[in-house]
């Protein structure tokens, strides 16, 4: 039997309030909202999974009948039974070499100027705005630049035999495309270097260049390298600008036994350009070949980006 007293009344009251505050109320609207948001994210995941599964499954017959080595080493052809991707593979590799050789030095030097020499000057502001705008220019516009400059105006130098529609023109077109991404990434890496390192170097009498060369760059190097690799990965997947400067969409023959300069001045293809042309071919057999080609591209991209992620993680641990 419960005896009622003021004290027990108060205890019961406190209990009721406590229960009202902590008991699980069904917050249906909140739950629905949360699930809706999660669905948005999971749809992206689903798309990714379906895309990868669809491509990999579509390519299986090629791996079974042809094998990777044969597929990669065979030249382009209109006959699906023997068509390979060799010229495109080779073309993409040389195009990336152009990007690394041209855009990386220019991009890193620009970033060094912006971050180390002139962080607030008028010129730096103009260059900064310019870089951000360049990063937003659609890739096909770079193709137009290449078409006007390297194909039309400088055609006699870049590719005298092929009206300028050469590997050199392709490389020179992709390099400025990668430039703003490299500048932004390198500048970010330089900004992440603590000022104390610079102050210490200047404090013992180092000149600005000595400070940069011996103290700032070594610390920023992994970050800069990560940015470079990621931007090369992006340039690797670009097809639109190459179409404009004459990337070959069907098949072509490279003159046998020609020197390296002849190759550079000759016609070219690239992996993404080949995806474009093959996916539009009517023959059913090219479906599987296109899927196989995409698998090769994605594996290469995975290798490129995986290196970048590996570097980033090692770098983050060290700092």
């Amino acid at each position: 039997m419960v005896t009622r007293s003021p004290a027990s009344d108060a205890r019961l009251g406190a209990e009721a309030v406590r229960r009202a505050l902590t008991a699980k109320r069904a917050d249906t609207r909140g739950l629905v909202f949360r699930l809706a948001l999660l669905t948005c994210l999971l749809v992206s995941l689903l798309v990714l999974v379906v895309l990868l599964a669809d491509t990999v499954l579509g390519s299986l017959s090629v791996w079974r009948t042809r094998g990777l080595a044969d597929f990669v080493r065979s030249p382009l052809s209109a006959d699906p039974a023997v068509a390979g991707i060799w010229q495109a593979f080779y073309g993409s590799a040389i195009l990336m070499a152009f990007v690394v050789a041209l855009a990386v030095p220019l991009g890193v030097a620009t970033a060094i100027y912006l971050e180390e020499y002139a962080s607030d000057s008028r010129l730096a502001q103009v260059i900064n705005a310019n870089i951000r705008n360049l990063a937003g220019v659609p890739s096909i516009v770079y193709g137009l630049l290449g078409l006007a400059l390297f194909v039309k105006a400088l055609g006699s130098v870049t590719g005298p035999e092929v009206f300028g529609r050469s590997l050199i023109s392709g490389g020179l077109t992709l390099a400025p495309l990668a430039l703003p991404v490299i500048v932004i990434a390198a500048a970010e890496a330089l900004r992440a270097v603590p000022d104390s390192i610079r102050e210490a170097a200047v404090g013992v009498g180092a000149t600005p260049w000595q400070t940069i060369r011996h103290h700032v760059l070594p610390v920023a190097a992994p970050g800069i390298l990560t940015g470079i690799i990621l931007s090369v990965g992006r340039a690797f997947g670009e097809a639109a600008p190459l179409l404009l400067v004459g990337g070959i969409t069907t098949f072509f023959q490279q003159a046998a036994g020609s020197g390296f300069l002849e190759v550079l001045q000759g016609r070219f293809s690239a992996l993404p350009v080949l995806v474009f042309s093959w996916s539009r071919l009517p023959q059913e057999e090219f479906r599987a070949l296109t899927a196989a080609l995409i698998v090769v591209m994605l594996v290469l991209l995975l290798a490129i980006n995986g290196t970048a992620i590996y570097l980033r993680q090692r770098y983050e641990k060290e700092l």
Partner: protein
Amino acid sequence: MSLRGLEGDRRRQRREIGWRLLFTSAAGGTILVSAAIVVSLAGEAWTFLANVDLSALWDIGWFPRRGMYDIKTLVVGTLLVAGIAMIIAAPLGLGAAVYLSEYADRRLRKTLKPILEILAGIPSVVLGYFALTFITPDLLKPIFGNEVAAFNMLAAGIGVGILTIPLVASISEDALRAVPTSLREASFGLGASKLTTTVRVVIPAAVSGIVASLIVGLSRAIGETMVVAIAAGATGGSLFSWNVLQPGQTMTAAMAALAIGSDRVRGDDYAFQSLFFLGLLLFVATLTLNVISERLVRRFRQRY
């Protein structure tokens, strides 16, 4: 010792000046890239406008090799594809961003965020192939039946939208995370639920950044070439049409189609110059959008 004495010997000074000059000229060189783009676009576009009868810009379709440069075909095609892309990318991108920033804890965020990063790294030709071989036959055909053409603007728009999701998500997530925690705490302190706090406090506070992410996404969608070139029929969509289930042409895809259409890009007609006219329109449109979004982004950065 005077201040001069601390500067070191002449050779060292000259070397410093040399390096400084090298970096300054490299930085200046990037301006040359912009200048080269503007000059090459404007030069050929001017030749085009000066030589083409302006009435040819309003016709029944875009057939540059026959002297028909109907710009509305391409503008409408571009807006349709970009519009479909934004219908896909805006809710999915924003939803993902709100979830990542407001609901996911650190561990979940670390597992889920790479999905968007991987999606962002997929080349656009791959999405084009996916739109042509999966979205159209396996997704659209069952819904719309035989009204769907093999090449159509709807599939291309969905493909472009998928490409745009990571961009919208990452910029708006930045904006949401820039909202100070104190605002959320104040809202909770007044007894608001998580839902109310997110919808009525956090999202309004981040609205300029969210709008910026949508504008950048739109700019990206307008400039996207390969998905449309592959999945919407680069050569079949040159007649003016509103029907998104039929082939269509955007400004970018029209340029790609024209460039591969023939080895004789330098013909007697003004097809070659029309490329640059389109390029200039595209350049101006995306530049305007990017400048607007940059203003907006700067606003949310300044406020907090």
